């Protein structure tokens, strides 16, 4: 660990690959490791919140704080497991599960109207009023057959999002 040229043994690569259910190829894992080491400037074995924020696109993402909570302090193996939801080989279920976790910030397995409002707030900032957000959310829920009092589970999310194209694929550059 340390500089970008530090080696991952074949055993390490296989262990990481198994941990992410083979959703990344071995070359992709090597590329990800190089990037991981670049971001982990002080070679601690994990990337700190501050180091994540040094990636410009990440810092500009309105959901960055929520994502940070999910990735802060992960070691490389767990980090790859987290990223594997973005692999082209990952199932829709896997991707929707990640989306669900973004909404379910208190991790109680249920997403309430309030939880969804908070995410909508992150996404729209000062460009929508609270009333507008409530109205939009109310309509969205109604169209999907829910109400403002509903608590959505992962299964509900899958029912609603399962048929649409999620566009949650990322290509890992391989040298």
């Amino acid at each position, binding site marked *: 660990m340390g500089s970008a040229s530090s080696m991952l043994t074949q055993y390490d690569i296989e262990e990481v690959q198994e941990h992410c259910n083979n959703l990344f190829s071995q070359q992709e894992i090597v590329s990800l490791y190089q990037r991981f080491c670049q971001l982990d400037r002080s070679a601690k074995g994990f990337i700190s919140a501050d180091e994540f924020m040094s990636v410009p696109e990440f810092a500009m993402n309105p959901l960055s704080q929520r994502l940070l909570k999910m990735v802060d302090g992960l070691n490389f193996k767990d980090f790859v497991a987290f990223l594997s939801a973005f692999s082209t080989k990952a199932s829709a279920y896997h991707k929707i599960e990640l989306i669900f976790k973004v909404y379910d910030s208190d991790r109680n397995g249920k997403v309430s109207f309030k939880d969804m409002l908070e995410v909508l707030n992150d996404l729209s*900032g*000062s*460009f*929508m009023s609270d009333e507008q957000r409530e109205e939009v959310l109310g*309509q969205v829920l109604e169209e999907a057959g829910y109400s403002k009092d509903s608590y959505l589970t992962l299964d509900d999310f899958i029912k609603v999002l399962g048929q649409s194209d999620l566009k949650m694929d990322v290509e890992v550059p391989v040298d």
Partner: protein
Amino acid sequence: MICSFFVASWTGVVKYHGPRPSRRPKQVFVANHTSMIDFIVLEQMTAFAVIMQKHPGWVGLLQSTILESVGCIWFNRTEAKDREIVARKLRDHVQGADNNPLLIFPEGTCVNNHYTVMFKKGAFELGCTVCPVAIKYNKIFVDAFWNSRKQSFTTHLLQLMTSWAVVCDVWYLEPQNLKPGETAIEFAERVRDIIAHRAGLKMVPWDGYLKYSRPSPKHRERKQQNFAELVLRRLEEK
């Protein structure tokens, strides 16, 4: 001459393409930037004057003594007012017929030679011809990218000298002028495209200075604004 020796010290194999730059007033050279050695690679062929960030340590000393002789303009990235002063110095230099042709790296910082980041418009609003120069290093022999966030220049230089060779191609490209109705920024982007195309570099829409500072909140806000507008428009349609 000095540059040739320096280049030889890291076994530099440089191939120059295109017509050698001629000394004419009212022209400025721009190139993509990978390392401080870009300047030396180009200087080997033609005496350029250059605009540079003043560095601490022995590099600063080198800059002050040797580079003064070719005519250098200094800037300080961290000083806010610096920009106007430098813009004036640039304009004065370009007007003078006796000065060495001015070489500017519009990216404003070293980039990894796979991409080009956004060009700063300063070089393109001087009211003169812009001659693009493209530099591409062959990575097989050594990675010439100086990651100033990770290494000091001394370490970088040592690394270059102990590697096999620095192999690169330099292309002197057709001089460009501001087209009627074109803004300085559009001009900069057009020239960046010419350089990136020649050197096989990808163009990315990032500001090179993001290397040094965090993106301002306005980027995030713009995303929020786009999202909000999209959602509200859908709401209207109902």
